[in-house]
């Protein structure tokens, strides 16, 4: 498996997970915008990271504005936005990346077994606007109905 195959399956996995579990129609944005151009300076972000090992090794990232976190958590749990708590939001962000990661790796190479780590949260302060430029890897930029997020992969 090569990097291009992985990026193609990552795009498919993002659509599959967000549409199936979160009822979010998604549009993958094909352009070369950076994370600093994709997110605005006054946006509060939450993220998760997931390590993987196998024919390729590296880390996956999910970066998502807090406003979208509330929306997808409510959709996922079948609750109203005002009924969900911080723990549920953080857990949903990690599980979203877990599903995207598992889906990507199992479809990238059906014969190989990847070892997935346990998703970890990236706290808001580590995703401050001035730190976004430090994140390495290739990012897929995604538009939902009226929001936006990003999923990245850094291959070692």
């Amino acid at each position, binding site marked *: 498996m090569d990097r291009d195959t992985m990026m193609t399956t990552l795009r498919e996995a993002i659509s599959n997970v967000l549409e199936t579990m979160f009822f979010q129609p998604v549009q993958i944005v094909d352009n070369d915008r950076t994370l600093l151009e994709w997110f605005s300076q006054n946006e509060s972000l939450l993220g998760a990271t997931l390590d993987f090992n196998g024919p390729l090794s590296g880390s996956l990232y999910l970066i998502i504005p807090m406003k979208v976190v509330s929306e997808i958590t409510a959709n996922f749990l079948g609750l109203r936005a005002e009924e969900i708590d911080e723990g549920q939001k953080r857990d949903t962000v990690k599980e979203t990346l877990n599903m995207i990661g598992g889906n990507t790796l*199992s*479809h990238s190479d059906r014969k190989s077994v990847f070892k997935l780590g346990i998703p970890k949260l990236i706290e808001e302060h580590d995703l401050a606007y001035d730190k976004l430029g430090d994140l390495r890897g290739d990012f897929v930029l995604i538009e939902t109905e009226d929001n936006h997020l990003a999923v990245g992969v850094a291959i070692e």
Partner: protein
Amino acid sequence: MAFNVLIVDDSSSMRAVIKKIIKVSGFDVGECWEAADGKEAMKVLMNEWVGLVLTDINMPNMNGMELITEMKKDQVQRSIPVVMVTTEGAEERVQEAMKIGASGYIKKPFLPEEIKRTLSNIMGEAEDGQRHYDDDLEGGDF
């Protein structure tokens, strides 16, 4: 007859979603216990009557594969159907899970219908098995 379910996943949100699907799917469910990993699941299994286990694979402390392996060592727990609900879909991983005793496999992301269909099949088989067992008892020389 109502059956008790144990949902094992380190994501509390995922446990809540699966629980909700099972509850609204029309199954005759009694208790619905939750555990965050295999170790917690073993504690529930040792203290409660569980009719079905749905478990993730990738969890801290004790993963889903290790949980099945532990259950198979126990005379009572070995007969409890276990369905893997997981993001891991590599063929080798699926075959490995079925080989060590998983009764079914649901890949995340899933539609509610997939949970319902898999549980219908498995619980149908479990009830048939129980019926045959009861028939054998009635027909046997005891």
